[in-house]
């Protein structure tokens, strides 16, 4: 699984961090999403899917690497 984020779309909700804190963080200064793992381990798959789903700005895209 490969993650891409659209920083321009990010609204800083932090929903992705709540769902998958091992994979996402936010920049201190403006809250924009930071990708900690672009290709996360298998056991994080469900959490990452949830993070993409709950993003209120539809800023997270997933593809099968």
């Amino acid at each position: 699984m490969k993650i891409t984020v659209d920083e321009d779309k990010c609204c800083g909700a932090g929903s992705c961090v709540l769902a998958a804190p091992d994979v996402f963080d936010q920049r201190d200064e403006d809250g924009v999403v930071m990708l900690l793992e672009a290709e996360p381990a298998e056991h994080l798959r469900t959490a990452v899917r949830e993070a993409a789903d709950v993003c209120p700005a539809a800023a997270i895209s997933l593809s099968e690497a």
Partner: protein
Amino acid sequence: MSTPAGVLVAGASAAGLATAEALRRKGYTGELTLLGDEPHVPYDRPPLSKQVLAGAWQPERAHLRTREVLDALDAELLLGDAAASLDVENRTVHTESGRALAADTIVLATGVRPRTLPGQDGLRGVHVLRSLDDALALRAELLSTRRLLIVGDGVLGAEIAATARGLGVEVVLAGPQAAPLAAQLGPLASDLLAELHNENGVKLRLGAGVDGLTADGDRVTGARLSTGEVLEADLVVVALGAVPCTDWLEDSGLVLGNGVVCDSRCRAADGIYAAGDVARWHHEHLGSLLRLENRTNATEQALAVAANILGADQPYTPIPYFWTDQFDAKLQIHGVLAADAEVTVVEGDPAARRFVARYERHGKAVGVLGWNMPKQARLHRQQHLTTGGSR
């Protein structure tokens, strides 16, 4: 896990699409139909009053999914046809065009429509902003407008004011509150918002409601306030909130009352659920019925509905969240900021326009507001607000 033979989702916006996607992701392989009243593929609404209205984004950028991703959903996408009535017993939706769509499970996700002023219909130069077409129509007129009047001092009105100022238009914002968003944010943040709008040239005409519009023939010329004062404008946007789209359900027998009334599982009747702006459900932790009109709820409630359709039997107890961007201010609001709450700045400094405030009632945290501090606001939410613990 129970598996319905077919699922029909009425409403193809954020909540409807998210329900369909969540069903597939959770392993549902049966028939899936998504019915939408607009001709467009599902798109996102928050950018409409900002990026799309400003012209920074082409409309396609607001689409929620690419055509390929929609195709992969393996759902029948019926667009440009609105739900017209619901037969609860036979679980059948009849559409405007005469379709009869029966399904084992039906999800009501028809959203809300803007409130309007009496006499507004048929008047040129008056706009609402709910749909993509609304945004494009407003943008087209804004580009040749000198004076814009916005009727409504809530989130949408304030965002449109900021965007229109960015386009160089003279803007007057009118509404009954003391400051924009006063009811949602309380005095600290709404007074700061008023300051911000003032500095950026928005003329605030607050503290008086709007009684009606004024016109010359079929063209709007402004609006009349409850004080009798008339505000002149070339163009008027009415942003007075929205009402749930439940007209089509009036003969259905479902309980309606400012939305489709649901139990804690977001279930309106056997095999019938509601999600998004149109749903009024029993929030078990708050102990009351709640209807949320925000983008986050559309998705989160859709996920809960999909899980319950597949047998999860879980109550939906979110911490409400919304955000708004106006000029250089990015506000994040977690929980419920009761107007009578006690407010403490817990990080940053309002004078620097970068801070987090905690809202408390009866000694318990009910909400967190971040002003240009999104990450810190989220951290305080995690520290102070527990799931569903907005009271």
